[in-house]
């Protein structure tokens, strides 16, 4: 079943075109990595889905509904949860309040409690300090918090902008372990922006390469890793 479908999405910031006629489709339960150099439009792609930036043209369908130009809070209600770039923790709110914030859209209150306990089990550092302001956490702990917070909203599709940034390798492994387990258990669909392709090759899944606002290559992550097509596409050899 197709969960998310972008059709010819173009996003402009003033004169600048950040995303040019991008089309992309995600099946439920799929793992998709987006990679590409800085300024390729990776974050813009996620923001367009989240409803934070309005596409100039094109349609985005989430679970069958057109969500292009819908409000972020309505898109969240359709089962999309986003971890944007930069750690947007609510520093004045306690860790537990951060985690509870996204659960307002859920009706399964008993499951919320179970999920909260599960998150604390995965990230014991959060449990220890659950009543202190999230602003006091270290950078790595804040990164754990925003991933856990997005998961607490109980999404069908989670989009994460660079989950590895600033995390210790051991914690990165834990984060991915959790994401993949939720994918296998609940059919969670993963859309992950990573600057490097190493993780995608390790985890498997589909890889999409963006450059200058255009999707220029996509395919199975491990297949792509074998040849030099990825490097060529990434750096744009032989085109100029």
């Amino acid at each position, binding site marked *: 079943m197709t969960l998310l479908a972008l059709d010819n999405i173009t996003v402009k910031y003033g004169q600048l075109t950040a995303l040019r006629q991008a089309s992309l489709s995600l099946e439920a339960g799929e793992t998709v990595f987006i990679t590409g150099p800085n300024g390729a439009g990776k974050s813009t792609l996620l923001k367009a889905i*989240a409803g*934070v930036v309005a596409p100039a043209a094109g349609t985005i369908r989430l679970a069958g509904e057109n969500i292009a130009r819908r*409000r*972020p*809070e309505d898109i*969240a*209600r359709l089962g999309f*949860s*986003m971890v*944007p770039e*930069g*750690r*947007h923790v*609510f*520093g*004045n*709110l306690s860790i537990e*309040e951060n985690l*509870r*914030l*996204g659960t*307002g*859209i859920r009706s399964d209150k008993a499951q919320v409690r179970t999920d909260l306990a599960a998150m604390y089990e995965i990230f014991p550092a959060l449990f220890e300090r659950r009543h202190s*302001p999230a*602003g006091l956490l270290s*950078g790595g702990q*804040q990164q754990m918090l925003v991933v856990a*917070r*997005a998961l607490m*909203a109980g999404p069908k599709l989670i989009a994460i902008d660079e989950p590895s940034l600033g995390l210790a390798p051991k914690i990165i492994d834990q984060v991915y372990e959790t994401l993949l387990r939720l994918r296998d258990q609940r059919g969670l669909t993963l859309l992950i922006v990573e600057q490097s392709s190493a993780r995608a090759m390790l985890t498997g899944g589909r890889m999409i390469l963006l450059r200058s606002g255009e999707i220029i290559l996509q395919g199975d992550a491990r297949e792509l890793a074998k040849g030099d097509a990825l490097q060529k596409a990434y750096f744009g050899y032989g085109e100029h």
Partner: protein
Amino acid sequence: MTALLQIIFDALSLGSIYALAALGIALIFGVMRLINFAHGDYIAFCVFAMLAPSTDAMAVMLLGNLPTVLLVPVILAIGAGLSVLSELLIYRRLRDANPATMMVASFALGFVINHFILMLYSSRPKSISLWPDLSLPVEILGARLPLLQLLAIIVTVAIVVALALFLKRTRFGLEMRAAAENFTMARMLGVRANRVILLAFAISGMLAGAIGLLLVAQTGTADIGMGGSVMLVAFIATVIGGLGSLPGAVIAGILIGAISVLMQVILPLDARPFRDAFVYGAVIACLIWRPQGLFAPKSAKQRV
């Protein structure tokens, strides 16, 4: 000792009004980065809503004749209604405009409300007697103070505590605090932006109503400019407290009230007419010392 107590009560009761007004401004600023300069005119509007339209110097009570148990909720509702209406009709349409545009719109709205009152009631201040029993003095620890002063302090404490509980203990409160810190992120987590903003306007408007009642009872006059001077001090208080910080707004409001009263006491007689110059001098000193405000919210300094 009793003189000191007197000063403390004076400072607290004046500071209370400033604190409530600053709270009303900080709430709106928190969720939409708007300094609502029409807030002072909400206060005046709530006061004049008690009177029958006339240009006489003696106020004729209309709504004001309602028994207190009805009058208070009605005036609070009028404040909330006016505030909510300004969001629905004006600010919502400017949601994506830049902050300067919204601020100018709030000035304009203030003028519209101000001149609406002017048309119906003329610019002449009216003497008005609301709850005259409350001006009777009571004795506390040897200090004699009007019951009203005490009431102003108690009401402020009650409002601040109720608001703190609301923000801390309820789902709406949680969403409002989150929205104040990072509105876009809150929306991405499903927080309904329009509902949160509307609620902030409603609470802010109720605060304006409460201030209107306290002011009228204290001063005994209804004046179309009465909200303006409170608004100015309250705005300064929100800046000194750290824009966006609710506790900061309350504390800075009380602080400015306290400094005003203190200047009145310690300044030599000849200098007293220039009290405000000294008060605002202290404000400037405070801003030079801490430009970000006394209690700049943590969201202002992002962690790397």
